Structure formats: structure tokens, C-alpha cells
């Protein structure tokens, strides 16, 4: 008869320990590798994105030939209210301040519009809708999360802009064929709807059933339970969804370029006026450009990264403020 005690030899255990050490090292290496990409990205964008502020580029224009360009002034770049003063290739007077503000406005409004709809849709799917309908809607949400954004853009162009023109009609306002801040906001909020809905739905669904029972047993109605207990308990998941949504909204370019009107200068506060975001500005004309006009897009990337980091941190802060203490 076998005795396990014979198997547990010193050598066996030593071998096990070695394997253990190696595997753990591999796991750690993976983690460091995963983390290193953000460094690579930042270094890479910084490398290209800082050079417009440091170097004298050579510009060219078919009328004036080659000219030397001054480095871009970082202050006026960050505060500038128009994209480019002067002629492409002959000027380094780039400005992005207006687009930073416009981006924040667009993303903020898109989130304001999208979050209630997404969260209530998620609640609807997870708790209210009959099972069949819920399953169908869940699948549709997952499908929509994978549609390329240009399709959303064309949808915006075909449907949303018409709607905006219709709305503007009431105010007797002449829009740019519906290309506007409002269209951009609507298209973006539709785009991030699946993301926020999917993530929120998962966390709403996984709210511990015992606290739901607890609420009902106290004589709360189902609606009160959803609003006061379920949503509170699912808060962290909903915030995770919002953060993903903000990321997607900030990073979106193709759809925005189609419906925003690509405003060239100025902060847009009129919902019916055209606007522009950092990413769409970054992508506009990037395919066929060189020199400073190409590298300056990496400077936008740098600004964009900063906006993302700051937004993320402040969202996290708000999240902690709003209810971190109730997490276990």
C-alpha cells in the first residue's frame, strides 16, 4: 500500500518551490509588461509631442518656398482660440485652448445625457423587464458596443442632424445643416450608451439579493428598493462604466468629425452651433501632412492624455466622496 508520506520528499518539495518561484516571477513580469505600455505611450507621444515646442521646423509653401518656423509657444498653444493663425506650413501659431474647453463641454453634456438613460436602461434590463426582453436587450447592448464608430457617425449625419434642424426650426435658427454641439453630444451619448449600460447592468444584477430582501421586508416598494438600495449598492460598478464611457467619448474622433462641423476657432456655448473636440482636431487632415503640422498632433495627444488623467482622477475623487465609505 502506498503512503503519501513517501512522496513528500525534500527533493520533491524543493522542485515544487523552484517552479513556484519561477511562475510567480512570470506573473510579475506580465504585470510589469502590461504597465510598461503606458510608459511607452507617454514617452512616445511626449517625444514627438514636445518637439514642436523645442525645435525650429522647416516649413514650405509653393508661393514662398522654404521658410524657418519658430517653435510653437506652449502657452498660446494651450490657451489659443484658433487652430492655426496663418498659412499651413508657414506658421507655427497653433492653438488648442478652445478645443480643450469644447471637448470638456461636449463630454460633460454627453455624460449628463447618457448616464441617466444608460443607468435606467440597465436597471430596466436587470430588474424590471421580463426575462425574455431582458435577454434580448442585453445581447443588443453587447452587440452595439462593437459597432465601428463611423457607423454611429453616419447615423448621426442621417438622423440626428435632421432632428437638430427640426428643433432649430422652432427657434427660427439657421444651423449648419444640423452639424452642431447638440448633434455631437447626442451621437457621443448614444455611442457610450452600450458601454455604460453593459457595465452598470452587470453590477446591478450582482447586487446581493439579501439586501434587496431586507428592503422589501421593511415595507419598501420594489421601486423604492431599486432607487434607494440597488442603485446605491451598484454605485461602484456604475462609476466604472461611466469612467469607461468618458474614456470612449474623449477618444472618439471619426464620429465627431462627421457631425460637429469641425469648428476652427472659438469656444462654442450655443448648442446649435458647430464645435470641435481634441481628438477630431487631431485626426483632421492627419493623413496627408508632414513636418510640424504632423507632430503638433502628438502635442494634442499629450494634452488629451493630461485631460484623461485629470478627468479620471477627479471622477475617482467624486466617486469616493459620493459613497466610498459605504464600501466594505
Amino acid at each position, binding site marked *: 500500500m502506498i503512503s503519501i508520506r513517501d512522496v513528500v520528499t525534500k527533493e520533491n518539495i524543493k522542485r515544487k518551490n523552484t517552479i513556484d518561484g519561477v511562475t510567480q516571477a512570470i506573473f510579475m513580469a506580465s504585470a510589469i509588461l502590461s504597465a510598461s505600455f503606458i510608459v511607452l505611450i507617454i514617452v512616445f507621444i511626449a517625444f514627438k509631442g514636445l518637439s514642436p515646442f523645442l525645435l525650429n521646423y522647416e516649413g514650405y509653401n509653393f508661393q514662398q518656398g522654404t521658410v524657418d518656423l519658430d517653435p510653437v509657444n506652449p502657452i498660446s498653444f494651450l490657451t489659443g482660440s484658433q487652430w492655426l493663425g496663418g498659412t499651413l506650413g508657414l506658421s507655427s501659431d497653433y492653438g488648442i485652448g478652445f478645443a480643450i474647453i469644447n471637448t470638456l463641454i461636449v463630454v460633460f453634456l454627453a455624460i449628463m445625457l447618457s448616464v441617466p438613460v444608460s443607468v435606467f436602461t440597465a436597471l430596466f434590463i436587470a430588474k424590471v423587464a421580463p426575462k425574455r426582453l431582458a435577454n434580448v436587450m442585453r445581447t443588443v447592448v453587447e452587440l452595439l458596443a462593437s459597432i465601428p464608430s463611423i457607423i454611429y457617425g453616419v447615423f448621426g449625419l442621417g438622423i440626428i442632424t435632421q432632428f437638430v434642424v427640426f428643433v432649430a426650426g422652432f427657434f427660427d435658427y439657421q444651423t449648419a445643416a444640423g452639424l452642431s454641439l447638440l448633434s455631437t453630444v447626442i451621437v457621443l451619448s448614444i455611442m457610450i450608451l452600450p458601454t455604460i449600460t453593459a457595465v452598470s447592468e452587470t453590477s446591478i444584477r450582482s447586487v446581493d439579493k*439579501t*439586501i434587496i*430582501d*431586507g*428592503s422589501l421586508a421593511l*415595507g*419598501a416598494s420594489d421601486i423604492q428598493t431599486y432607487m434607494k438600495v440597488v442603485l446605491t*449598492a451598484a454605485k461602484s460598478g456604475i462609476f466604472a462604466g461611466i469612467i469607461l464611457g468618458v474614456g470612449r467619448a474623449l477618444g472618439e474622433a471619426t464620429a465627431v468629425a462627421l457631425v460637429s462641423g469641425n469648428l476652427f476657432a472659438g469656444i462654442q456655448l450655443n448648442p446649435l452651433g458647430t464645435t470641435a473636440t481634441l481628438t477630431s482636431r487631431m485626426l483632421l487632415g492627419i493623413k496627408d501632412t508632414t513636418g510640424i503640422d504632423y507632430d503638433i498632433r502628438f502635442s494634442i495627444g499629450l494634452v488629451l492624455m493630461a485631460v484623461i488623467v485629470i478627468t479620471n482622477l477627479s471622477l475617482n475623487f467624486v466617486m469616493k466622496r459620493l459613497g466610498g465609505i*459605504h464600501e*466594505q
Partner: protein
Amino acid sequence: MDAIFELKNINLYYGQTQAIKGIDMTIERNKVTAFIGPSGCGKSTFIRILNRMNDLIPECKIDGNIEFEGQNAYAKDYDVIELRTKVGMVFQKPNPFPMSIYDNIAYGPRCQGVKNKAQLDEIVEQSLRRSALWDEVKDRMKESAMGLSGGQQQRLCIARTIAMEPEVILMDEPTSALDPIATQKIEDLIVELKELYTIVIVTHNMQQAARISDNTAFFMLGELIEFGATDKLFATPQNPKTEEYITGRFG
């Protein structure tokens, strides 16, 4: 004898399987009634009939006659929310809401539309006092209830229930997750509470049943084997199965 619940010929099915088999029972006002019996015999199922928590299980079907304070609690026009405000429930695992201690207690009253801050403050303090938790938490009302210890959480759940001033408090194994000291506190509390409330408690612990209850019901395989005054049931059980269970083993 003042009956608060009158149950007649109750049958309950989970899909195909019958979990409660033709049970009659009368629950007395301002008494502690204990449910005992081996695991899976239907204690939890039966106690949940009393505040219609089984309504939430889709495949669960029930028939029979259930009267609460003389009214058919399962009648079409009977308001289940009203029933649950009058028949409170404390669960086996403490289940505080992920909110502050204060908000946990104020939750029920707020759901009923109480908004006045002073009123709420008073309700919260009283409930916590009655559940013997006030002194331990009075300085941390705004902190999360999740930070309390298990026994404190369970007393919080009781306080939450008391805040609704129910007629009946149902408790499904309220101390099984707790240590002896916390258990002791909850038991003391139950004895105190029975002055004001009718209490129904499910327990695995025979001694607990013996110590705190006035009446005991012994279930087995969905049937009510024996039901009567606790001292009589433990001293001279009528049914051999009851005797076997309460003397057989364990303490």
C-alpha cells in the same frame, strides 16, 4: 388567547415539489413563537409565508387561508407593502444596506414618507436604544454600517425593523452567524421586545428555543409535527419524533 396570525391548511409548492404540507397554526400576540426542526424541513419557507416574502420567488405557489389580524393577508386587494410594514423580518445573515448607520434605520420610515429631520432623529435614537445598540454607535451615526461587527450588524437590522413599529417581528436564525456574546445580547433583546411585539423565530438551537420562546413548533419534512407551549413541548413531547429530535443529540 389573542391570535394575531390564523393559518389554515397551508400548502406551498416550489414548482413541482411540495415544501409545506397542509399546516394549521395560530400565532399568539405578544408571545415568542419558535420554529425548530432539521435542515430543509420548511422552517424558513413557513416563516416567509407570514410576510409574503415568498411572493418574490417566481415558481412558488401557495394555497390555504392566512389571516393576519382577522384579514385575509393573501386577498387580492390586501396591500403587501402594508403587510410588510406591520410584519417585520430579520434575516439569518445580517444584511445592512451599504449606507450610513443613520440612513439604515431611517430607511424604512423614509420609504413611508417621513421627511422631518427631528422626527427621523427621534425614531433612529429610539430604535437603537431599544435594540441595545445606541451606546455603541451613537458617535458614529454617519459612518458606514458595513463597518460594524457581525453582532452589531444584526442588532442594527433589528433596530431597522423596530423603527417601523411593526406588530410582528419574524427572525430566521438571527444568531447562527454570531458569537456567544453577541448571541446573548440578541437573546436578551428578544425577551425585552416581546413586551411590545409578537415574535416568531426560527432556530437550530434547541436551548435557545427553550430559553426564550413561549410556544414552539416542530417541523419535519414540510409537516408540522407538534406545536404547543414551549415548556410542555420540551418536557413532555407528545410525538415520538419530537422527543427523538430534542433529546437525541446535541446539548
